[in-house]
């Protein structure tokens, strides 16, 4: 126990911390400019100087460690005089353009100058003049204002790990610059903006259109983009979102955000948003009224139900909608329509993979705390770069490496390249063999743990052994044994599994092998999730085989329970998955699909097939915020409210239920409201007054959410399996289909790129993200480029069996020689339009990795 006295107040401390931290813990504020609680100590600004008895000079509180018996004073006349002097030096070059500067009002320098009463500068020379750097699409640098506290640089290097900016030059000329000197070309996380104490680096979004004190309302809510579920604060002036900022001290992201979260909010106020319901009349979508649209939908649904049976109708739910919306959606489909044909794009990977892993390890196996990754001593990454798919989770992996943990990757992860990963880069389509090799090597090294006999029984007949790997996968024995040694020695390893793994041929077998590795070394599994509420959607029962609460439909006792709760009979057969829906629609068995907040034409592979299926329907309803590709084909389009305009909850990938709150007012109806109106028109009354009431019902009927309410969620600890009990044990049987992709040397395969700046439909409507990354490019390796004599920016015609696109190429060293990476984010230029798929028999996910592609140069 250490006892120190700060300003006459006695403070007891468990362990030695810095004087600054000790003072903060006692509620004593010491001014700082270079110090920030997220960053490394720097000791550069000299503002935190304090008096320590028996020390001859003033000491910097941010670097001085407390010692027992220290007597410290933080505010004396001498200290004030010194701080005033420091500020005077800072103001030598700092322009006093506060009236123009957007930071004024929350500027730390301004506050300090006001506090220490600096009224006169004695410096008589000219101030440094640097023009504002406006080359970048989302960030503006004003280096006149920079006080070189290097917070941004330390943030960029030490926390974000992008190392895109650095201090340039020396002395009075030093300032911050990205490598190019103009555009940042970085990860655009914008975390430099949130740590900058002055207005030197600022966001260009809504620039000059607000002052901090004019932001009328602040709403703490959850980011709408990926499955990490970062807490964000939405700041609004006159119902326009002016900025989205992170909040220090939140559980998931603790003051950090990524590009999508910070700069991707502008879709909310986009002018292209739907405002009125549209009904197809004479082949054209025409504006109409809510009443007419709802009546039409209700009557058409009843008609189809009577004529063709309930199972001729299917519903596609949305991982971007709240739990409440999805709950009402599945209730609507099951009760009002009477079918289990409910699915979502979670079927493209997440749903199946989670079901598969939970089958082996029990429910909740994938719901691990994200910040726990930083405390692992080894992180095994496979199937996609986590730093682009779930950037904040990626930061935890980087933090793990910084703390001395080992990063093990299968395949090359560009975002982790400065984190000394041990990398195994198998040749194309041989991941399965590599994983088999790892399993057998680990089994030899560590032996079977013995606690899961079913799984171990399955490990008896592995095809590939360690000795085969150099031949099959082209992996050096030296690298491999280092990899195995590190993995075997790890005490708390974590496994991060991306979609590419799930969507490869033999994906379920691959998943099984990763699970086996996880089992042998006793690790934790993280399943990357691309959409905000992918997990919640499944929990709400928006799957053909699940009731709310992740309850299998096939168990009669669960069905009974829901029949009692909803006071109606329920269909007992599992419905169609989203891919089966498209098949059935093409075959004519399905007559109607109700789509809520999803864009299947764009977000499902084999676009042509999907389009043909949807065209074949006699009735298509789309409920969305934009007129998407799917909405353009619909018979009725209903405008919904976006994430910022409604209340509800999202469940993130670690299974934390978090509140989404209304930040902006907009005329219109929430998704659940629209559905309950239609339902009431069909004769099944649903009277919900608000989202909280729906959540109340969810908590009553779903055993997963038992005893929860909004107040408890607000406290931030709503993680389930609630109260720690797993709700479904592991099963006795593990289904495996052994199959693996075939390698054909010299061919190019199309791979889905999952870029940092886009997520699909929403990000396309956010101008800032489009400005950062404006067009689709096909990424190829230097070797491919050389073989096809292509260079950066050349236009190519990329053709596969299902179509062809013309787009520019970019040469990227991070890409495998046999791969062509194309993202699925730009209208008419999506990778999915070039892809065919097969369905994995176990996970029901599409296998996308055997799509060959041919690139030809187009001469213009």
């Amino acid at each position, binding site marked *: 126990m250490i006892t120190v006295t700060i300003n006459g107040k006695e403070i007891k401390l468990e362990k030695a911390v810095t004087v600054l931290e000790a003072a903060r813990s006692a509620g004593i504020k010491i001014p700082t400019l270079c110090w920030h609680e997220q960053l490394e100590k720097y000791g550069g600004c000299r503002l935190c100087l304090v008096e320590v008895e028996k020390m001859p000079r003033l000491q910097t509180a941010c670097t001085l460690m407390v010692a027992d018996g220290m007597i410290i004073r933080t505010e004396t006349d001498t200290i004030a005089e010194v701080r005033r002097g420091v500020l005077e030096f800072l103001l030598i070059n700092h322009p*006093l353009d506060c*009236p123009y500067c957007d930071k004024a009002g929350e500027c730390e320098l301004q506050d300090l100058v006001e506090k220490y*009463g600096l009224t*006169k500068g004695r410096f008589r020379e000219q101030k440094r003049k640097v023009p*504002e750097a406006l080359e970048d699409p989302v960030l503006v640098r004003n280096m006149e204002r920079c006080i070189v506290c290097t917070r941004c640089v330390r943030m960029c290097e030490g926390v974000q790990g992008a190392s895109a900016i650095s201090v340039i030059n020396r002395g009075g000329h030093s300032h911050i610059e990205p490598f190019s000197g103009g555009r940042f070309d970085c990860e655009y996380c914008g975390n430099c903006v949130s740590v900058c104490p002055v207005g030197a680096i600022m966001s260009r979004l809504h620039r*000059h259109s607000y002052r901090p004190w*004019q932001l009328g309302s602040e709403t703490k809510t959850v980011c709408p983009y990926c499955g990490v579920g970062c807490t964000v604060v939405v700041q609004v002036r006159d119902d326009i979102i002016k900025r989205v900022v992170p909040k220090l001290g939140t559980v998931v992201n603790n003051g950090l955000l990524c590009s999508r979260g910070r700069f991707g909010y502008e879709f909310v106020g986009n002018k292209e948003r739907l405002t009125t319901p549209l009904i197809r009349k004479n082949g054209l979508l025409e504006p109409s009224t809510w009443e007419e649209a709802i009546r039409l939908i209700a009557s058409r649904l009843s008609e189809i139900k009577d004529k063709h049976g309930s199972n001729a109708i299917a519903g596609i739910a949305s991982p971007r909608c709240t739990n409440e919306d999805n709950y009402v959606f599945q209730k609507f489909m099951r009760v009002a329509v009477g079918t289990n044909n409910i699915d979502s794009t979670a079927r493209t990977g997440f749903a199946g993979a989670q079901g598969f892993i939970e089958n082996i390890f029990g429910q909740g196996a994938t719901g691990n705390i994200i910040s726990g990754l930083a405390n692992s001593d080894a992180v095994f990454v496979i199937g996609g770069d986590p730093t682009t798919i779930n950037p904040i989770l990626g930061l935890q992996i980087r933090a793990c490496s910084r703390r001395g943990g080992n990063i093990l990757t299968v395949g090359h992860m560009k975002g982790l390249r400065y984190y000394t990963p041990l990398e195994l880069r198998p040749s194309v389509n041989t991941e399965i063999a590599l994983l088999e090799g790892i399993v057998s090597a680990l089994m030899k090294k560590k032996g079977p743990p013995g606690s899961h006999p079913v799984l171990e029984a399955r490990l008896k007949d592995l095809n590939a052994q360690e000795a085969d790997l150099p031949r099959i996968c082209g992996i050096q024995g030296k690298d491999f044994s280092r990899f195995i040694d590190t993995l075997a020695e790890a005490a708390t390893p974590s496994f991060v599994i991306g979609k590419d793994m799930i969507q490869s041929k033999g994906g379920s077998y691959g998943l099984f092998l990763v699970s086996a590795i996880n089992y042998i070394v006793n690790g934790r599994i993280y399943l990357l999730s691309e959409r905000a509420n992918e997990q919640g959607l499944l929990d709400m029962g928006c799957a053909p085989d699940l009731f709310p609460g992740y309850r299998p439909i096939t168990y009669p006792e669960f069905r009974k329970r829901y029949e009692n709760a909803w006071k109606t009979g329920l269909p007992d057969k599992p419905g169609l998955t989203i891919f089966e829906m498209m098949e059935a629609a093409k075959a004519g068995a399905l007559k109607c699909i109700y789509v809520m907040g999803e864009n299947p034409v764009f977000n499902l592979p084999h676009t042509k097939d999907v389009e043909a299926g949807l065209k074949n329907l006699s009735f298509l309803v789309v409920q969305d915020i934009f007129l998407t590709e799917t909405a353009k084909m619909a018979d009725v389009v209903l405008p919904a409210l976006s994430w910022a305009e409604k209340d509800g909850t999202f469940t993130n990938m670690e299974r934390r239920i978090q509140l989404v709150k209304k930040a902006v007012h907009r005329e219109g109806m929430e998704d659940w409201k629209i559905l309950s109106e239609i339902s009431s028109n069909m004769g099944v009354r649903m009277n919900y007054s608000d989202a909280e009431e729906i959540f109340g019902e969810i908590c009553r009927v779903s055993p997963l959410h038992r005893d929860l309410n909004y107040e408890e969620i607000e406290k931030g600890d709503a993680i389930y399996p609630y109260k720690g009990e797993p709700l479904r044990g592991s099963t006795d049987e593990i289904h495996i289909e052994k199959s693996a992709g075939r390698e054909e040397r010299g061919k190019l395969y199309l791979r889905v790129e999952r870029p940092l700046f886009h997520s699909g439909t929403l990000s396309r409507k956010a101008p800032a993200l489009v400005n950062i990354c404006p067009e689709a490019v096909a990424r190829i390796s230097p070797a491919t480029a050389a073989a096809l004599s292509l260079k950066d920016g050349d236009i190519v015609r990329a053709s596969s069996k299902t179509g062809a696109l013309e787009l520019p190429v970019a040469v990227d060293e991070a890409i495998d020689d046999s791969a062509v990476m194309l993202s699925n984010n730009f209208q008419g230029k999506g990778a999915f339009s070039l892809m065919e798929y097969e369905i994995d028999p176990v996970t029901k996910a599409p296998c996308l990795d055997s799509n060959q592609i041919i690139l030809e140069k187009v001469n213009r």
Partner: protein
Amino acid sequence: MRAGKFIQTIFFTEIIKGMALTLRTLFTPPVTRRYPKVKRPVKPGFRGLHALAKNEEGKMKCVGCGLCGAYCPSQCIYIYTSEGEDHKKIVDRYEIEVLRCVYCGFCVEACPFGAITLSEHYEYSDYSREPLYMTKDKLLANWDRYFAGEKGLRYFRDFWRPKAENFSAYEGQAMFDKVKARRKEQK
């Protein structure tokens, strides 16, 4: 006593006293003015209708810093700015709900550029609210109307020396007069 009172009552002495006062007042000049025919000259620094100042080039001085709106105790100043073509800040809307203004003059005091002014004009009334909702154009027109010529210069010379002048002088890294005064007080 009683007799005195009786005499007062029967001879109406009080009425005579009163009439004497009336007679005297008849020949003294009047205290009141015959408003609206006669108007009282306003004292310098009078706080009347608002106007937005223009500089020598005839351009609006306001840069949209929003300090007036932040300071305003009745919260009746609305400012909307945006990024202009040349990436400078431009003031799109500057609006004052005059009917809610309490004429405290804090906005004038807060303004670092001497952009918002209170003119000597006080005669404005109307049958609806709209004419008294001052927009940017109306406020700029007020400047031309009430601060034409020398008058505007005098206003700033005599009363509201804008704070920005403190910034421009070279011993001028000076910033907050308020703080300066406070420090003087402490010493």
